[in-house]
């Protein structure tokens, strides 16, 4: 069978074990849980300050009803950022390149925010379909557009994360292949390409963190509208 560049994203199976299961299960061994000690070590202090700071900043614009979601959002953030960053190591598989995982996270969480809004304050939630100050003639068009934009949200959420990570990994693969091929032929060009690869890897580290953050931030915004 001919290999294409997309084959790196096929869910890998080794000796009958789907490796995606290990890729989802094992990263949490890298994040220790604090014990009942007064003083912990640096890693735990770093984790604690990240979790505390992130939760505070995310929950600040939410009404008190939305504060119940703090644990879910922080868990989601830690989940995504760890999985994304670990996928940048060589020979690892990134589960978040799988559309199934991202849509599986995005659709239920988005739907939860919509249902909460529709049940607790239906008038307020439906009011989002018509921005303030629209001219009367545009009202039907705008309601249709806002409905479409509401339903596209979960798709966008899932596909954004998938596409960003897939594209990043694909680029790394392509440029690494180019460097590898060019090295015996034109070493100076290969060195330039290698520098490009280094910069791209730094970009991908940033993208991994930013995309995890954007996912959770958008969910918190959708919650903000509805709670």
């Amino acid at each position, binding site marked *: 069978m001919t290999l294409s560049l997309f084959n790196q994203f096929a869910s890998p199976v080794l000796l009958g074990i789907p490796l995606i299961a290990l890729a989802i299960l094992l990263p949490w061994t890298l994040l220790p849980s604090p014990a009942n000690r007064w003083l912990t070590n640096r890693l735990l202090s770093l984790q604690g300050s990240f979790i505390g700071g992130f939760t505070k900043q995310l929950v600040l614009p939410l009404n008190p009803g939305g504060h119940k979601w703090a644990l879910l959002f922080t868990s989601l953030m830690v*989940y995504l950022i760890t999985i994304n960053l670990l996928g940048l190591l060589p020979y690892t598989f990134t589960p978040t390149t799988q559309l199934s995982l991202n849509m599986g996270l995005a659709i239920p969480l988005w739907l939860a925010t919509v249902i909460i809004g529709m049940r607790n304050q239906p008038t307020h939630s439906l009011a989002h379909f018509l921005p303030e100050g629209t001219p009367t003639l545009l009202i039907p068009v705008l309601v249709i557009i806002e409905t479409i934009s509401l339903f596209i949200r979960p798709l966008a959420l899932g596909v954004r994360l998938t596409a960003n990570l897939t594209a990043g990994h694909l680029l790394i693969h392509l440029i690494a292949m180019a460097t590898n091929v060019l090295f015996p032929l034109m070493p100076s060009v290969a060195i330039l390409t290698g520098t490009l690869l280094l910069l791209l890897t730094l970009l991908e580290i940033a993208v991994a963190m930013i995309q995890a953050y954007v996912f959770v931030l958008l969910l918190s915004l959708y919650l903000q509208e509805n709670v």
Partner: protein
Amino acid sequence: MPQLNPAPWFLILVFSWLVFLTILPPKILNHTFPNEPTPNSSKKPLTNPWNWPWL
């Protein structure tokens, strides 16, 4: 595109949610913080200027 292969979709969905709901929240909850959040007070704190003692 292999991500569009629907075969492992359900298992990936179930497994990822399982790990997300069972392993992560206890790990996050174990990080406790010793102080309650304090509200912003309107009075500015009294501070005397100080310099590093060894300079």
